[in-house]
């Protein structure tokens, strides 16, 4: 198989064996932990910085302006300058706030997004943890993030924050259902929840093509619901700046605000990677039926590029949503979920089960 030239599992195995040869198993595992941790931290920071920059440029492009263009070529160092500014900003402590919870909240949000990152396959063999219940794990872990938002809103002792937190709680709890159900549609099709296997099964065609109509519906619902779950426009009611000034993070400043900010972008990245992995074949190259030459050509593009490319396209879509639509109202948001997305989703699950039973999929 040509694309096995990019198989990184041999590389990771080589690291593992060479470490174990040099030291006791305990220290070998420990070193691996540290390595993975450092790699993820670096990745997290780089992706976060890049996404903020990309958001600014895309937003500027939508709004007929230039965006950041002074710091560095094309303004690429703007986010780094911002980061430095945020690091030096004063951390404001609010009187009568619940200090412990106030300080813990940003960490909970950011840890939840870290945990989810662990299960995402970036390439063949390039995955921190390959659970056999990968999708379930990601959904489970991402549901913790909302607690950070709720705590942030409540512990700030500000009414705007509290309303923002309540909105966000209602929103995320509801939309988790749709995210889960739309992923279940694909789980039914794939017959597994292991992310690496799901990617592997899309070798001959991505699920969005092979899964007929239900997969397309599931993808659309996933996009809507996950945009809502990560609190991005047009579903950014939790921070709705024209109504609640900044919602749950009104009272945060400096690096703690930056944590929320970064977590939002990372959540966007995670959601986009899950969508890319589950619906668009993750790091799998695009293969079309029996076009051997085309398929071979595609195989030579490294999987990491495929993966990042797909993720970037979906992130671009999510950004376009934000900069195009007006914000929904809270009751409309819940109506959309409970009256439209959920019934459609349930029906979609049935439809997919039927198709799989009949063996109508490719």
């Amino acid at each position, binding site marked *: 198989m040509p694309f096995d030239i990019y198989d990184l599992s041999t590389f990771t195995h080589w690291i593992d064996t060479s470490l174990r040869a040099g030291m006791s198993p305990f220290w070998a595992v420990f070193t691996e932990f540290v390595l993975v941790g450092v790699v993820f931290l670096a990745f997290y920071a780089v992706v976060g910085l890049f996404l903020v920059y990309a958001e600014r440029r895309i937003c500027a492009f939508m709004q007929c302006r230039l965006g950041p263009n002074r710091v560095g070529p094309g303004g690429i160092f703007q986010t780094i300058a911002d980061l430095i500014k945020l690091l030096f900003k004063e951390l404001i402590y609010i009187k009568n706030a619940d200090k412990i919870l106030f300080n813990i909240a940003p960490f909970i949000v950011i840890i939840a997004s870290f945990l989810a990152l662990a299960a995402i396959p970036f390439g063949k063999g390039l995955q921190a943890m390959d659970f056999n219940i990968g999708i379930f794990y990601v959904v489970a872990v991402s549901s913790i993030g909302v607690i950070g938002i709720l705590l942030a809103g409540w512990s700030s002792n500000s009414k705007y924050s509290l*309303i923002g937190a309540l909105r966000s709680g209602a929103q995320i709890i509801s939309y988790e259902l749709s995210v889960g159900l739309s992923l279940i549609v694909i789980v039914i099709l794939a017959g597994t929840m292991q992310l690496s296997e799901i990617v592997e099964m899309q070798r001959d065609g991505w699920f969005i093509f092979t899964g007929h109509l239900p997969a397309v519906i599931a993808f659309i619902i996933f996009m809507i619901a996950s945009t809502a779950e990560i609190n991005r426009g047009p579903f*950014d009611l939790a921070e709705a700046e024209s109504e609640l000034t900044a919602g749950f993070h009104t009272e945060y400043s400096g690096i703690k605000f930056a944590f929320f900010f970064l977590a939002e972008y990372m959540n966007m990245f995670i959601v986009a990677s899950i969508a890319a992995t589950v619906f668009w074949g993750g790091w799998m190259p695009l293969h079309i039926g029996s076009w051997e030459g085309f398929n071979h050509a595609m195989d030579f593009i490294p999987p990491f590029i495929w993966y990042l490319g797909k993720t970037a396209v979906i992130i671009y879509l999510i950004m376009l949503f934000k900069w195009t639509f007006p914000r929904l109202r809270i009751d409309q948001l819940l109506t959309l979920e409970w009256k439209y997305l959920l019934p459609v989703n349930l029906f979609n699950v049935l439809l997919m089960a039927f198709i799989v039973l009949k063996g109508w999929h490719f």
Partner: protein
Amino acid sequence: MEGVLPINQVVSEVEQQEYIINMGPQHPSTHGVLRFLLSLKGEVVQYVQPHCGYIHRGIEKMTEKITYPQIIHLTDRLDYLSAHMNNEAVSLCVENALQIEVPERVKYIRTIMAELSRLASHQLWWAAFGMDLGALTTFFYGLRDREYILDIFEQTTGSRLTQSYNCPGGLMNDIHPDFQKKVKEFIKNFRKVLPEYNQLLTGNVIFHERTKGIGLLSKEDAISFGVTGPSGRGSGFSCDLRKSHPYSAYDKVDFKEILYTEGDTFARYQVRMDEMLESMNIIEQLIDNIPEGDYALKMKAIIKLPEGEYYQRVESARGEFGVHIISDGNKNPYRVKFRSPNFSNLSAIDSMARGFKIADLVAISGSLDLVIPDLDK
């Protein structure tokens, strides 16, 4: 609620408490230093109490110490988005009191300038209204096109916002030689851009959901509260003074008074969108026919109005602007009262917003297009 409370007592206190929120004076969607005191039940607004006066500068008191031409420069600072109309109101009032007739050329230019101001004001409103609803992109589109008008203003009047272009007896100076060309260019361009506005916001499903049936104001209430301008016309209150009490060159042009009867936020939105088209029609009818002549009458150095009361109504971008001058024959007025449209429009907000949600309140106050310096005076 400091200290220790048994649980059941807590519950009963929570039930009794009003949940009160201060929206403003520093808040993104009050467009200035206005404060709404909201009582909420969940997200539903129980009542709204507007608190104003954060930039009360005592303009009415100041006018009692200065001369009539000087008042012009204070009226700019009322509703800065329709500065031209405010100037016009004072100028017309003084001219009526002195019973002088300004040259035709002045009337034409005043009308064109007023309509340009209206366009610029509506563009800014559209931009900010989209932003109130969370569509941030509209802000840049609106401001981009408003820039053309401000450039035209700058060229002729030397100022972009507070133009002070009208004065009793005519205009401060003549129009720039490029004025007509530039205005025509702008209109040609804006006629192309306006459909873009509609594509971006007017046709959006979320936008319809957010605005239709929200903030209802009946015609009777609109009249009783004195809600004028586009906000009143969205409720079917025919209050366009350009039509009913024509001044300047409005009797020479053919235009429609935009009326919508729904009385909701969407109707008020539609009125303004249609008014932009009508304003362009008016300008197009006048721009090629500006008569030759003087741009101002020769006025005495010190203007003294004969003793008496004078009132002038003018349609500004936000509604009926009125100037009430009481003169005792001196060079400064005895009392000047500005009837600011925003003040009356604001008074209706409580009855409009009750029972709707916070997000709707933002939409409603956005659709009233409040300019805070005008209502605070």
